[in-house]
């Protein structure tokens, strides 16, 4: 079927060049005429692809700039104090440093707790909803809907549990502030992975288990777990583990 609208009309609509009446009439036809709708979508895609091309060039320029900045060695500007002021300058700097370090230490000690460190390191994990069995799909959907209690109920009702089920349950336990239960579920994944060649969520489990230990106040175990991750630069969560402050972990050791 060929409609009465020319490409010119479609472009006018896309570019918002129609009068209100023309626009209403066109939109009515779009709803009724599948061929016209298809042509409109085609033209719209062309417009969006052109826009996308421009955007890609814009991002590409910033990408180049960023890459150059990574290769540029840091330029340290050194100030050479005059001889007679070296001691005074040193003492001043030392005094400021002592004050700053002790102030920072007091602040860090006061504000660091299991939850603050956990929250600052936690990344909300998103999962897909493409799984075969209906029961599995239900767990996924409940998780994505942030209905964590229902996830646990569905998880417990499931007779055959795989690594993925345990992982989703563990994530839900973390959201429900039940770190010990999360730890057990993560440890189950480790056991299942150890017993099979088809390993799932290995890196994810390493990292989130460390976070669960932090949340539970089991700092020595968290440190051990983080050390395992940071000893492997290829680990998916290498940077995340590296970013967790060891000073804060020490503070938690003392506090716990």
């Amino acid at each position: 079927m060929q409609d009465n609208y020319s490409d010119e009309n479609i472009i006018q609509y896309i570019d918002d060049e129609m009068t209100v009446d023309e626009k209403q009439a066109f939109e009515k036809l779009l709803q009724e005429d599948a061929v016209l709708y298809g042509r409109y979508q085609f033209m719209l895609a062309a417009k969006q692809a052109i826009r996308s091309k421009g955007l890609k060039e814009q991002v590409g320029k910033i990408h180049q700039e960023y890459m150059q900045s990574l290769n540029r060695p840091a330029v340290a500007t050194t100030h050479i104090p005059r001889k007679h002021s070296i001691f005074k300058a040193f003492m001043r700097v030392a005094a400021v440093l002592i004050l700053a370090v002790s102030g920072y230490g007091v602040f860090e000690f006061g504000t660091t707790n299991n939850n603050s460190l956990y929250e600052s390191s936690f990344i909300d994990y998103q999962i897909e909803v493409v799984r075969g069995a209906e029961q599995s799909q239900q767990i996924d959907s409940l998780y994505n809907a942030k209905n964590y209690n229902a996830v646990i109920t569905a998880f417990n009702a499931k007779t055959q549990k795989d690594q993925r089920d345990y992982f989703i349950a563990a994530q839900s336990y973390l959201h429900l502030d039940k770190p010990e239960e999360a730890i057990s579920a993560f440890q189950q994944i480790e056991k299942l992975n150890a017993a099979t060649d088809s390993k799932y969520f290995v890196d994810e489990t390493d990292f989130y288990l460390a976070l669960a230990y932090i949340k539970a106040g089991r700092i020595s175990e968290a440190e051990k777990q983080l050390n395992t991750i940071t000893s492997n630069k290829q680990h998916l969560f290498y940077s995340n583990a590296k970013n967790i402050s060891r000073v804060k972990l020490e503070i938690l050791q003392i506090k716990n």
Partner: protein
Amino acid sequence: MHVERSYSDAGLVNALKDPAEMNAAIRFVYREYYGMLENYVLNNSGSRDDAADVVQETIVAFIEIVEQGKFRGESSIKSFLFAITRNVWLTELRKRGSADNRNKNFEKEKDILDEGAANHLIKREYFLVIQQLFEKLGDKCRQLLMMVYYENLSMSEIVDQMPGYQNEQVLRNKKYKCMKQLEQMMQGNETLRIQFKNALKNAG
């Protein structure tokens, strides 16, 4: 020399919608998230060059999703970018037909973004084909269409920059002709037509 600006998630979304702020916002995204996203690709059989391509694709896709109001802010920007990167990289691995077992496992664990964002990534697949066809247009057409659809310039502003066209109406006619030419090339490309049809079906 650029002033380094920092943004909250909500601030970043607003900045990406504002042409005057966009470059600063993109630079912030690079500073904050490039390392994490690059690491993901490197840890999953990718090279540094792969990572560079994937992260650029991720950032462009993210800006488009934000511009179209499809970023609902239900997850943090960090998680969202991570999910896009996974999606883009896994799609690339699938294209390469890698038989690597580890990749297969990752494929099974692929994140799914919410429907609007996931559909946008599907769309971007055929954007690439359209962009290749766009390159075949003449210089004047490409210049004009970029000014209209990327720079969002008005016809009067474009007349000033393209003195070869006497007035706005002549320019408007030229724009129709260029778009028509592009559309004909698109209609003549069977792969694109199939991709497009499938994408429309997916979008419901």
